[in-house]
């Protein structure tokens, strides 16, 4: 039977050499059986190629690394050799200060051990595997910055620091962001104003039991355990208890934030009180506010507040498969 000759070739029609294809095409003109087979194979390719690809779960890559690590094969997270050497050197140095580190955990901005605390946090963040563990720790750090702000306010300390959180309330110049009450003067308010619940990133000066915003930005989307979200600002704050706002390190620009620019004049905001959550600004509880210091123009210093590389990256996907004519061109491949 003449078809016998062509049967196997039909199965890999798309990669036939021109001469082979020409001979087969001539046969197909006269053989309905082979035409049906070729059409069936083309449909097979379409059906099989149309199967939805699956993505490895976010935990999967971490489990692979853990398994290799458990077998003594690999470190928990892969980094370039120089990064590992750098990290190990820092770790060794930090180990020498083990007891100091424990004490530094409760340090607040402006205190001598605070720089050590932040270095330790940053190191740990860098060493964590990309993806969920890093994003979760980033969230922990963001919460820690807010707690520091609250504690500083309670203690009546003086320092500048940056943190971010959702806008929970706005009443005149008094906003509550992530549980921290902050005086936000018109000159530093973003335009348009953030909505309640929207995340903002602030740089504040805390002095005399209250916080005054030096710069306010809309924050990038909240970090999620699946990665991709912003990391908290990891730069060392100006710890000086006497630093004036005009000398402060400008607030960095982060991904998703508006670019640095001259701040607009203070917009008039008088939200309807009934639409806002009620809270009593600390200024009404305690005392009149100190005169607001001059506000620095926020710019984006290199390296500050940058978001680490995308956790996990974009996982490789299955073959790209451009639509193929029956028996036609080869598909894409990884």
């Amino acid at each position, binding site marked *: 039977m003449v078809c016998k000759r062509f049967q196997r070739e039909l199965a890999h029609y798309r990669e036939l050499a021109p001469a082979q294809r020409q001979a087969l095409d001539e046969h197909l003109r006269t053989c309905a059986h082979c035409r049906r087979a070729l059409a069936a194979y083309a449909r097979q390719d379409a059906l099989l190629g149309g199967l939805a690809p699956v993505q490895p779960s976010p935990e999967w890559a971490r489990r692979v690394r853990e398994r290799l690590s458990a077998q003594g094969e690999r470190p928990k997270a892969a980094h370039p050799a120089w990064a590992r050497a750098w990290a190990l050197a820092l770790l060794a140095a930090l180990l020498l200060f083990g007891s100091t580190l424990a004490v530094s955990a409760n340090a607040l901005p402006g205190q001598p051990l605070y720089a050590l605390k932040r270095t330790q946090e940053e190191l740990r963040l860098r060493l964590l595997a990309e993806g969920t563990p890093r994003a979760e720790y980033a969230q922990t750090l963001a919460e820690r910055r807010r707690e520091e702000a609250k504690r500083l306010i309670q203690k009546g300390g003086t320092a500048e620091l940056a943190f971010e959180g959702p806008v929970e309330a706005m009443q005149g110049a008094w906003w509550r962001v992530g549980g921290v009450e902050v005086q936000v003067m018109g000159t530093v308010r973003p335009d348009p104003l953030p909505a309640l619940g929207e995340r903002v990133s602030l740089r504040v000066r805390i002095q005399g039991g209250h916080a005054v915003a030096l710069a306010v930005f809309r924050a990038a989307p909240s970090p999620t355990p699946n990665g991709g979200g912003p990391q908290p600002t990891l730069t060392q704050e100006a710890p000086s208890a006497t630093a004036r706002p005009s000398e402060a390190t400008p607030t960095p620009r982060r991904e998703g934030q508006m670019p640095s620019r001259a701040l607009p004049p203070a917009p008039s905001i008088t939200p309807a009180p009934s639409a806002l959550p009620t809270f009593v600004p600390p200024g009404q509880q305690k005392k009149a506010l100190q005169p607001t210091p001059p506000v620095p123009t926020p710019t984006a210093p290199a390296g500050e507040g940058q978001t680490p590389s995308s956790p996990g990256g974009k996982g490789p996907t299955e*073959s790209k498969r451009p639509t193929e004519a029956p028996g036609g061109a080869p598909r894409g491949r990884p």
Partner: protein
Amino acid sequence: MAGSTDPERDALFERLFREFQGVMVNYLYRLTGDAAQAEELAQDVFVRAYQALPRLKEGSNYRAWLYRIATHTAYDALRRKRLVHFLPLEAHDAAPAAPSDVRDAVQEALLRLPPEYRVPLVLYSVQGYSTAEIAEMLGISIGAVKTRLYRAREAFRRIYQGDEGDGV
């Protein structure tokens, strides 16, 4: 680093892992039909690959090498756990349960193929490789790949036709 003192090996492994992790999970999913098992097997593949990396000759085709490890890993798992969904073609006269949708039917038909047919069909039609590339991946001749591919297509056609009453 724990256990390894070869930064070049680590760097190469990292590159392979990043490039092929999704591809391997998908390939193994098509062979097993079970996403969780595919992830487990893909873990095995990369652990084996890391262990075997020092023995790999320079200039080797890493992709073919990884696919060869994955294919053997899948064969082992299918044999060990008796997860071969293959039913003899002759015994497939009884009407099968209606699949929920076309994709289920396609995957089901794929799983009914013997692994030695399923593998080349997945590599050719799902992953888009040529018969020459598949031959290198499987360590067999191009002619053997073409024969298996033809038989796989015919077997798939009969199985799917039985399920769907639709010639493929």
